[in-house]
């Protein structure tokens, strides 16, 4: 009898549980799982959403890999961007977090100043940077650099930030550094969670600033480093708004980010099947990189819990 009541309760709870998560389940089926399957099938077709789709097997993938210069270029641009912006960004945000963690007065003000750029709308940010990075000395960056060079008696040629292939990617990397505040906050929290006894123990052992950093701080925040690395890679592979608004991929496709190329194929040329194939390749690349980071994490990420075994 007790068992019957218990199972009845269990069923009621299960029923209620499913009801609770029902919104997500419906959303998952119609907005995630269904589209994923649909997307894969479409990547095997030639489709423009107007005429019916034509099945072409792996034709899209074949073209992408063998006969598409812009694909290779976009992958290169995005990879270089990720490879540069992520490490430099991590170093900058960690450095800022360390500085802020030194119990400076006005820490909140500094924290706000550095964090706010990370939460501003991409469209507005792009407009502002387009103004700031104007070639010739009418752009404020060039003007400032010119003044600085003047101080040191250097002659300064204005940097063509967004108008030459060499500098355009560097400009985007620099723009990404404007938003290091996001990572900084995470590192700050990580730093604050390092138990002070460890630092004291290290000092007793005669460690100085750098050694404390290497032997105590770094290992203790390695999970945070790991998280930021993964998030940084995923995020940098999905840059779109700034490149769409500022350069549309130019000059000479030097800022043709992968997602911008995907957008162009999908919504400017209506080659939807091709774009779906591009999306799947993007997924494969991100997944591979993430797995590599995950696998390597065993070597350098240190979880406190593991030690307590």
């Amino acid at each position: 009898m007790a068992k019957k009541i218990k199972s009845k309760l269990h069923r009621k709870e299960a029923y209620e549980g499913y009801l609770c998560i029902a919104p997500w389940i419906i959303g998952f089926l119609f907005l995630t799982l269904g589209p994923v399957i649909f997307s894969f099938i479409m990547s095997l077709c030639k489709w423009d959403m107007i005429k019916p789709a034509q099945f072409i097997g792996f034709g899209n993938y074949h073209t992408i890999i063998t006969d598409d210069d812009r694909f290779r270029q976009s992958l290169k641009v995005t990879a270089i961007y990720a490879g540069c912006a992520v490490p430099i960004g991590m170093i900058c945000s960690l450095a800022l977090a360390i500085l802020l963690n030194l119990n400076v007065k006005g820490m909140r003000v500094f924290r706000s100043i550095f964090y706010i750029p990370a939460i501003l709308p991409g469209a507005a940010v792009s407009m502002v940077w387009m103004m700031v990075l104007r070639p010739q000395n009418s752009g404020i960056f060039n003007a400032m650099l010119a003044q600085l060079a003047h101080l040191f008696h250097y002659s300064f040629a204005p940097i063509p930030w967004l108008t030459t292939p060499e500098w355009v990617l560097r400009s985007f990397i620099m723009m990404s550094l404007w938003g290091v505040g996001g990572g900084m906050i995470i590192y700050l929290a990580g730093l604050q969670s390092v138990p002070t006894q460890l630092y004291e123990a290290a000092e007793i052992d005669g460690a100085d600033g750098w050694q404390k950093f290497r032997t105590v701080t770094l290992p203790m925040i390695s999970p945070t480093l790991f998280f930021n690395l993964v998030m940084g890679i995923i995020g940098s592979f999905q840059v779109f708004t700034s490149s769409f608004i500022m350069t549309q991929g130019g000059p000479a496709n030097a800022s043709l980010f992968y997602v911008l190329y995907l957008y162009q194929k999908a919504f400017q040329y209506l080659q939807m099947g091709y774009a779906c194939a591009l999306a799947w390749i993007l997924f494969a690349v991100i997944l591979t990189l993430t797995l590599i980071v995950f696998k390597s994490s065993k070597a350098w990420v240190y979880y406190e819990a593991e030690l307590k075994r």
Partner: protein
Amino acid sequence: MIRRLLLLAVALAVAALAVLFFDANSVVSHLGGKLSPAIDTILFAIGVLIMFVSIACFLTAIWCKPMPYILLILGSIVSLVPFLWMLGTSFKDAANVFLDPPQVWPKPWLWSNYQQAFQKLPFAIYTLNTVQITAISMFGQILSCSLVAFGFARMRFPGRDKLFIVLLATMMLPAQVTMIPVFKIFATLGWYDTFKPLTVPAFFGSAFFIFLLRQYYMTVPHEMDEAARIDGASTWQIYSQVLLPQIKPALATVAIFSFMANWNDFLGPLIYLDSPAKRTLALGLYAFQGQYSTDWNYLMAASAVVMLPLLILFFIGQKYFIQGVVISGVKG
């Protein structure tokens, strides 16, 4: 003392090396070669990293008490430059926007730019649209995510943990994979050029917020639930009257992040909205880049106004921003 001098020497040497990397192009062309822009950028980045080493040595060499302040102030100034320049330009007269050398203080100072900017394009309508989309989405997210997270955190049902892992897995999926089929689904439903594709999905939960809220639910002690159950509360009542008030900070975080995501969204409105009357602020800014020439002073004024709500939100709810980032980062 010797150590400091040594470090200084190292810093200078490394800096010289970095400069080599910065200007790799000219070095190579002296040797008769040519570098592709790609390799050039990589070398430039390596140069930047090497420069960091040099800076670190330099700083350690000259370290003193006020050093953190000096660095932070320098960093703040650099970080504030774009922002301040935007504000300055928004008050300038059109002829003074691009002077060489630039005009630092707007003379004449035109408050009217803001009014003019809003007349050039119907920004009032755009604001209304953006507010509408954002408000509905926020409401939908809070409602659905709190409910779903409650289910995952408190309810027991077969497959719960496996489904949760599926939820986590969806966070790894890049949005671009589903973007096109979802567009087709909404197009077939006739929802193109309406706000629905931007607001309705919010009512079905978002993996990140569900995860965040579930973690938070787990920190609420079960005693409260059990006490309420003994008092005869139904599950719905436990959710709405017992737990929901308890997770208010996390809900605030979800509200803020949802606001941010919707207010800043560009790609969504770009592909789903067509009529000029339906544009959001982000699209409005983009449309401001005129036909033949852009009025930069008005554009900066409009940009400043678009940024304003986020600034206000940040100053009011600073701790919720930080909290949200921390929960996702440190515990993720």
